[in-house]
């Protein structure tokens, strides 16, 4: 027996359980021998005939898998839909939650903004990898287990909801309108009766017109959104810009301790012993960032939904049900 045949046989056997090896080895050797012999009888070149015969038999691991009826995939078609569904549910929950918690704890620790962002990004990546790894590992084991776990039964109840034709709700509109009107009234009143000067840091004071402008722009945007009737990519981008126009200066003012005037700060510190004021400001900044980030993301998701499936469906759900 020449070297490459021995190596091939070993390549098959090492991928086969020990108890099957003694039985399988003579069989594989016999069929390689037959293939070589019949090719030689047909006039093949003796120098290359073994290589040709082994090439025809193919990858030994593949042959071994066919013999032992082991799957050549990580997660088979039986469990793949469940696997993908679980990942799609877990990743969008776990990754942002971990990132948020890291931002919060790092910011409370007093880390620099860049450091906070780096830690959050690192934690998000490692959370995504952990979720993917453990879910994949779990399903791979499930797929190979001898108990043959059946895939979750599908029923029509599991069908996804159709995105409505008008995906902008009037409740959302009313809510945004109310919040922004209140903000405008509050800020304008601060400007008008000069109370703001005493309450706010001089820097925050100069930013007041900007925030009033942003709130007015938010209202204009909400009206435009209601008129268009659905989220589009342009509206999502404008929403992101408005979010940044509010969040970036707001977080900067809080972070630089430029929000409240020195007198107010002193008063608060006197009342609270200065124990929790810093942390509460940090938490406020992180929460503002998280809410605006979620709002921006939400806008893009809605734009994708209404631009994707919604417009791809030719007719409304009512009319499709009756006709052929």
């Amino acid at each position: 027996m020449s070297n490459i045949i021995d190596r091939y046989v070993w390549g098959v056997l090492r991928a086969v359980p020990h108890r099957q090896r003694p039985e399988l080895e003579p069989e594989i050797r016999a069929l390689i021998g037959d293939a070589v012999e019949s090719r030689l009888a047909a006039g093949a070149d003796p120098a290359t005939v073994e290589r040709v015969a082994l090439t025809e038999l193919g990858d030994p691991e593949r042959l071994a898998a066919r013999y032992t009826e082991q799957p050549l995939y990580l997660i088979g078609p039986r469990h793949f839909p469940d696997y993908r569904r679980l990942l799609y549910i877990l990743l969008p929950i776990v990754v942002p939650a971990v990132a948020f918690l890291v931002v919060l704890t790092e910011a409370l620790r007093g880390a620099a903004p860049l450091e906070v962002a780096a830690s959050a990004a690192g934690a998000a990546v490692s959370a995504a990898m952990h979720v993917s790894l453990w879910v994949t590992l779990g399903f791979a084991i499930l797929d190979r287990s001898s108990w043959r776990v059946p895939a979750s039964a599908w029923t029509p109840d599991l069908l996804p909801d159709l995105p409505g034709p008008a995906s902008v709700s009037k409740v959302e509109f009313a809510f945004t309108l109310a919040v922004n009107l209140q903000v405008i009234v509050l800020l304008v009143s601060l400007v008008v009766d000069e109370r703001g000067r005493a309450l706010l840091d001089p820097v925050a004071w100069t930013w007041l017109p900007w925030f009033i402008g942003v709130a007015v722009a938010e209202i204009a945007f909400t009206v435009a959104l209601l008129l268009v009737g659905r989220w589009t990519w342009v509206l999502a981008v404008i929403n992101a810009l408005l979010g940044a126009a509010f969040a970036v200066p707001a977080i900067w003012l809080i972070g630089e301790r430029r929000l409240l005037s020195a007198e107010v700060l002193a008063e608060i510190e006197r009342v609270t012993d200065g124990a929790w004021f810093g942390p509460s400001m940090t938490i406020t900044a992180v929460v503002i960032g998280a809410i605006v980030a979620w709002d921006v993301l939400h806008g893009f998701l809605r734009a994708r939904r209404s631009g994707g499936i919604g417009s791809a469906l030719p007719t409304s759900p009512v009319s499709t049900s009756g006709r052929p």
Partner: protein
Amino acid sequence: MDFDNLVSSGRQELRRGTVVLACLLLLRQPGYGYGLLDRLRDLGFTVDANTLYPLLRRLEGQGMLASEWNTEEARPRKFYRTSPDGERLAAALLADWERVDASIRHLGDGEPR
């Protein structure tokens, strides 16, 4: 995908399920792996060696084939023969094959040329 590819992949689909039946019928006369592969190929079944050999072993494990090592020739060979259970399986599959054949023919005849 051009037409020839469609034909060859459709043909492969059609024949995939028939290899088991062909093996059970051919092995009424004892045969060994490589010889069976040759005969199947002569008959037009495009079956790979690395598919056929594990298939024979599976059928043996299921009791559809009996095997025995022939050591009389220069090299030992494992000969397979269809078992009585294998005969019954072959008869059932053959009956089904004939039903499918009749149905397909019926459809083909009804079609105007």
